[in-house]
């Protein structure tokens, strides 16, 4: 199948790849660009394991054609830490035991990253609603909620410092 040139910015770096028009972004990220943080749990938009951030929005990359990312700013879990420092969300997931098998975690973190920008002071119920597109089979969600609350507090404290 004829391939298309695709250029976008991934975690702060410009990348160029050749893709088939039918290729899904998750496969291009994982198999061509070797960013295997985003995972595949369903390929039907239900589980959120493949969640990445595109132009400031949470996107399930398993149902997003790679060519739709032309010129976009794409961020994956690999881009979350900066300057050798974990993002407060990453640190909070570790602190509050917000993960077990870790398979949902990259998607949770990327959705949480965007969610906290949409709602910097969420209640427990806000988190339950705002994160509902991401499934976890291991944690029963409670410690993920705690992790997000802790991250929100840490981010707000740092902003006010």
């Amino acid at each position, binding site marked *: 199948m004829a391939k298309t040139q695709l250029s976008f910015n991934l975690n702060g770096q410009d990348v160029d790849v050749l893709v088939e028009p039918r290729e899904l972004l998750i496969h291009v990220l994982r198999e061509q660009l070797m960013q*295997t943080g985003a*995972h595949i749990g369903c390929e039907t938009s239900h589980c959120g394991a493949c969640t990445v951030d595109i132009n400031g929005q949470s996107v399930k990359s398993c149902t997003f054609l790679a060519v739709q990312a032309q010129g976009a700013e794409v961020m994956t879990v690999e881009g*979350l830490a900066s300057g050798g420092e974990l993002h407060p969300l990453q640190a909070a997931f570790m602190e509050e035991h917000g993960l077990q098998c870790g398979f949902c975690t990259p998607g949770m973190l990327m959705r949480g990253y965007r969610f906290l920008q949409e709602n910097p002071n969420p209640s427990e119920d806000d988190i339950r609603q705002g*994160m*509902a597109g991401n499934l*976890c089979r291991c944690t*029963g*969600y409670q410690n993920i*909620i705690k992790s997000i609350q802790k991250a929100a507090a840490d981010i707000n404290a740092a902003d006010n410092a």
Partner: protein
Amino acid sequence: MSAAEDTLERQDQLQGIGCSRKRKEDPRFIQGKGNYVDDVKLPGMLCGAIVRSPFAHAKIVSINKEKALALPGVHAVITADDLKPLGLHWMPTLAGDTQAVLADEKVAFQQQEVAMVVADDRYIAADGAELVEVEYEVLPALVDPHKAMDDDAPIIRDDLVGKDEAGQGKRTHNNHIFTWDVGDKDATDRAFDNAEVTVREEILNPRVHPSPLETCGCVASFDKINGALTVYITSQAPHIVRTVITLLSGIAESKVRVISPDIGGGFGNKVGVYPGYVVAIVSSIVLGRPVKWIESRIDNISTTAFARDYHGIGELAADKNGVIKALRFSALADHGAFNAHAQPTKWPAGLFSICTGSYDIPVAYARVDGVYTNKAPGGVAYRCSFRVTEAVYLIERMIDVLAQKLDIDKAEIRRRNFIKAEQFPYQSALGWEYDSGNYLPALEKVLEACDYEGLRKEQAEKRAKGELMGIGLCTFTEIVGAGPSKACDVLGVGMFDSCEIRVHPTGSAIARMGTITQGQGHQTTYAQIIASELGLSSDDIQIEEGDTDTAPYGLGTYGSRSTPVGGAATAMAARTIRAKAQKIAAHLLEVSPDDVEWDVDRFQVKGNPDAVKTMKEVAWAAYNNVPEGMEMGLETVNYYDPPNFTYPFGIYLCVVDIDRHTGETSIRRFYALDDCGNRINPMIIEGQIHGGLNEAFAVAMGQLISFDEDGNLQGNSLMDYFIPTFVETPHWETDYTVTPSPHHPLGAKGVAESPHVGGIPCFSNAVIDAFAHKGVTHVNMPHTAFNVWKTIHQLGLDN
């Protein structure tokens, strides 16, 4: 600093048993650096896609591969005929049956594996699979297990016609797999005949699927030059997989390397050996290139490892006061088209005989009949020990049924029947020796924490107003940690587990285990055990699992066996090392080994606190200055064969409010008290309990694998199959008591499955309790809004 403070501080520094140490596996997962099977990419790797049957039961008239093979990028299309010359078109199951690897002349369940297309990448493989033309002649499907043994029932397994045995005892019908029973039937029948009251209920544990977030898959890589095979695989039991591969392929076990990389949840789904694995391995051997096969979610829900499908009948006999005199349980077990349940080989119904629960029942009898139907093969233990959920569900439902019949409070009837603390070790009527337990104080603790009496008052007031509120109790005992090798084996291999520890000269250590973590945090907790036993900081202890080339042989992680068996092996290995270290320390201190004693992280000459050698110092000496005649080095391996199972228990309470117009349920409160014996990492235990409760919630309130009368699966994506999201999932409250296991070296019992096993009946008991005043004694799961509404509507409570 006082001596006591000094001891405490040194203990804290170790981060050993009992502390909520942060997990060592987290840094890689939170940075996207986990290494799951689909992350494995080898040079020249090909991808496999499976062609599946659209019918539940059909003859295969022909398979035409031509179009698929003509597609550029397709390397092979493999069918049963290609596997036949190798004798690999069928494979043994863990249950002593055989299973078609690729359909051999007929298909016996919808989505059965018919062919695999191997191609350059997953897109071409999927295209190729579309191009394989299979002609079928449809046969009548058998869906209802109750009709499996009818005279005119369609025969599922033509290969077994005329055979009166399918690996688990005598068969009496073409669709019969086994009949298994235990207990004193005559004495039980007599007790029922003479009983003051009896109750009987038909109780279903419906077919469900564990659905870990990561599906199953493998990458097989055969090295033609050396005749060696490496398989990366999502397996909860890599060593057994290696043995099975050798038995199937004839490749020496020393040339087969199985690697379970990071695993995205297992829950029983990743114990068995599936057709996709076998075909990927054969493809790699034939094509000489690595071959990856990863299930889609739909493949996963449709084919690999359903759980339950136990159609039970519970009966209790009691006196007027609700004291149980006898128990009689039976179940019709639907195993699908092949008996591929994952249980210790000699246990056709797993550990179902734990069904007398937490109660002192003098006589009992249990029987399970297994049958074939045109459904996917199984069934596995979904976050439980083998068939323990089914057993616990029956007894915990039946005791509620008995309470309602006698109008005795549901907490009170449990008090009257509990095994008493002084009865342990307790010999159950069906043959188990419960190691330890203390049920009554735990029950009282929960009742008080939740103000049980207040809840019952509130319920009475609500009922008077026509509102629906239910209170569910579950006071369960589990049986985990399979198991003593005299009782348990898998394909003849005893169910021990193992740990190898090497202490390095500078006082760090590496331990390798026969188990394999799937989210339980083994890298964190095993190191804590070794830290406490050896007095080395847990941060200096590396834990490795899952690579059969380096790890000692073990039976893997399922049935909550890691702590009971692997954890015991770890403690025993560490103790062997400490015993040697003691001799070296005595040698260094120039006293006899009996004159030194252990103090957190060092040996000290008795009565002389200044004469000490730390474990670090001893480690160094182990490589240059040992007593005469002693071997150098500080390492050992332990294979632990447990003397008994462990018997964790729990007391759960659930409060549910039900909307009497829509049937929607709202879990107001869920309180879980668990007793898993001594606790290694409370943070991880709590996390396991949250997760297990959520999976219990899923099963009780929504999960169901259902079929129409032609055997078509009604919903096999996450659109239809219920996985609770953040929104539905209740808030969990956890609590604990500690009743150590007397036979486990650490007094630990295992915990991860209790919340699933105990949670399911607790949710059901709550929902059904909401209707108890209307005479409802049982309603089958799942308690979806629609199902609950049907009960409401039948009772006329919605107007």
